């Protein structure tokens, strides 16, 4: 109103804003997964310890509780940064559509309150409450953690399948917030993410103990520390493959351009092959191994189904193929590798009630946490980069949503420096937490009660 018109953001500023968002989201999502999955696994250990009286379980629960205290604190603040960045970087999105996706965020706020309140009680009142009541204070943390994951992902699902609003001349005139929240992308995307959170937490926790066992600490404490979270994650892995298939069908039906980028399909065809590997060069996918009719079969349950190619939309509306294709292949490949690892343990357990004898199993398990995180990040690259150039699919371009104020590049450099320090400090502190106070071979009651939680 009277002031100078904001000029469009430069390419560099847009790139900086996107990289900053990717960095802070990609960072927070790891913490968020641990925040969703770890309380449940910790509670499971505490419950087993209570039922069986096994001190190893109880000491594990305390140790995990302590790590949770650190992770939750860092996750709480790294999540806050995201709320800020929604406005700092994407005012064009929030100014218009903030109200459409406001409801799930309000609900998430309530869930997050519940999570923080009960985590405070769970961690700090461990010795003040009788065991059963203490475990009960952990239940709301699990429920609220899963619920907040659900609510936040519905907002992202809406960006993939925007619905529940009417616009006139670029202004929102009516909104159905419930329809926006329960859009078509919500069911597959939320389930896929919540399961992924448990896999990241489970494999991540297990890999810490796999490393310890490789170093020769094979006592019951370390075995349980490995087996409990690993079993949770491995049990979810096959379900996740099915849910991933559901999510892919959804993309095939409702975001065909994203599917074309995921698979490197440039030209619409029937009986499209599944591409393994390959690089997109000059509008063609080269050097890929092909499974004949595989893509049509997997995407539509019909070997001759038509797969829409990238050529159906103008070049300016296409997502970058190589990043999306590579990320998708990485996610799927690692997902199946984690599934195989779980089956390996299952087979060995069924045969002789023990871990596989070869050290290669523990070596692979030691990497499973990193693999789960890489798969998670790849999945988000597919979802987010595959949606480009849109921030709200089909309605608003990312370039039109970014803050036009100059200097976003400098903000990004500052944020990147802070995150670099934060990463180093977090890894350092967590490694120290894992190593300090070496666990006795046979924990005594005093080891359990004297272990300070926070």
């Amino acid at each position, binding site marked *: 109103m009277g002031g100078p018109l904001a000029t469009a953001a430069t390419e560099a500023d847009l790139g900086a804003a996107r990289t900053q968002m990717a960095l802070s989201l990609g960072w927070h999502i790891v913490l968020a997964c641990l925040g969703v999955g770890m309380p449940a696994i910790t509670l499971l250990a505490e419950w087993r310890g209570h039922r069986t009286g096994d001190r190893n379980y109880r000491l594990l629960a305390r140790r995990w509780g302590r790590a949770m205290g650190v992770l939750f604190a860092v996750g*709480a603040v790294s999540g806050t940064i995201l709320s800020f960045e929604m406005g700092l970087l994407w005012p*064009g999105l929030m100014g218009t559509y903030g109200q459409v996706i*406001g409801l799930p965020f309000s609900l998430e706020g309530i869930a997050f309150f519940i999570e923080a309140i009960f985590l405070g009680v769970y961690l700090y009142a461990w010795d003040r409450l009788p065991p059963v009541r203490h475990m009960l204070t952990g239940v709301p943390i699990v429920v609220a953690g899963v619920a907040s994951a659900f609510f936040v992902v519905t907002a992202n699902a809406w960006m993939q399948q925007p619905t529940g609003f009417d616009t006139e001349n670029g202004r929102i005139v009516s909104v159905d*917030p419930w329809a926006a929240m329960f859009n078509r992308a919500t069911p597959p995307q939320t389930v896929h993410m919540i399961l992924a959170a448990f896999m990241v937490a489970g494999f991540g926790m297990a890999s810490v103990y796999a490393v310890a066992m490789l170093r020769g600490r094979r006592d019951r404490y370390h075995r349980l520390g490995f087996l409990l979270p690993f079993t949770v994650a491995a049990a979810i892995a096959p379900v996740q493959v099915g849910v991933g298939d559901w999510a892919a069908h959804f993309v095939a039906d409702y975001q065909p351009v994203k599917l074309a980028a995921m698979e490197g399909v440039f030209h619409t065809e029937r009986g499209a092959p599944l591409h393994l590997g390959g690089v997109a060069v000059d509008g063609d996918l080269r050097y890929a191994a092909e499974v004949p009719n595989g893509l049509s079969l997997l995407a539509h349950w019909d070997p001759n189904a038509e797969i829409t190619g990238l050529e159906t939309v103008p070049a300016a509306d296409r997502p970058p193929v190589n990043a999306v294709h590579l990320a998708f292949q990485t996610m799927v490949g690692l997902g199946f590798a984690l599934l195989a690892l779980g089956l390996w343990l299952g087979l060995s357990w069924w045969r002789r009630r023990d871990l596989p004898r070869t050290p290669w199993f523990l070596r692979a398990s030691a990497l499973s946490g990193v693999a789960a995180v890489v798969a998670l990040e790849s999945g988000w690259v597919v979802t987010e980069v595959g949606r480009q150039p849109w921030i709200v699919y089909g309605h608003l371009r990312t370039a039109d949503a970014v803050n036009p104020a100059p200097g976003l590049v400098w903000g990004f450099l500052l944020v990147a420096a802070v995150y670099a320090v934060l990463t180093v400090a977090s890894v350092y502190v967590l490694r120290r937490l894992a190593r300090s106070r070496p666990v006795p071979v046979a924990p005594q009651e005093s080891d359990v*009660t004297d272990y300070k939680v926070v």
Partner: protein
Amino acid sequence: MTLAQAMLAVLWIGISAYVLFGGADFGGGVWDLLAGGTERGRPDRALVEHSIGPVWETNHVWLIFVLVVTWTGLPSVFAAIASTLYIPLTLVALGIIARGAAFAFRKASTEPWQQRLFGATFAFSSLVTPFFLGTVAGAIASGRVPPGVAEGDLLSSWLNPTSLVSGALAVGTAAYLAAVYLTRDAERGGDTELSERFRRRALAAGGTVGVLSAAGLAVLRADAAGLFDELTSGRALPLLAVSIAAGLASLALLWRRAYVAVRVTAALAVLGLLWGWALAQYPRLLPGVELDDAAATRSVLAASLGSLAAGALLLLPSLWWLYTTFQREHVPPRDSEK
């Protein structure tokens, strides 16, 4: 009351809770910074850590609540504030992450050099974060955030007399509230020497905040005359009077060592100022933008307010339980159980 007014009231309740609870956590960090050398400051730092440890994450959620309610209820206002004030808000965000992470890291570390490093980070960011938040409030109060995306001046919008004085006031208020709360915490812990120290700090901080508030009014008169008139002679005057009376009563109560009662009056003094500002500015949110121009559609307001009301049924008893759990003294386990 319209739905938009209700949403604005909910927003202001969130801001009030964040200032009273989250603000005091920042203030704890300020006292951590001023506690002196490692040895001399040990009991003070231990008290701060003990008091804010179980509750700071919950208190911090109020900020997220405020952000979410703003973008849901007043999307264009949120976009205008965030885009024009992106420099101080980025600094706030970085301060928040440094403070929260360093607080957790300090707790988890054992070696003195680490505790000092993380402690210094925690304390320093506790000082600068409320300052930048205060400059944001000053920018909005003095009408320097125009509607639209990044339409305001990126620097002078928050580097101006009103912003600077509100930044200082935010730091002072945080330190004051923290000192008042910690005085009682120290007394309950049985440490008279410590509670006396925090009582002196509370008196000094209270006096400083009083002087800063007076200076703030003088600055407003020159820098944002409309707001000043509403505060000093308009409908916000009663709230300003409440704030001043409660502030003076707090000093008297501190003097008489009524540490529980002073918690109420200190909070009232801060609330009077906050709600006085809101009332003085209502219904203008940004220059040329009134509440009804900016409010989200009815269906959004109804759904969000309904959800928040339902959520409050879960939330309020839980919050009550959290605070009362840690305001009771902990009876350590009997020796036989060790």
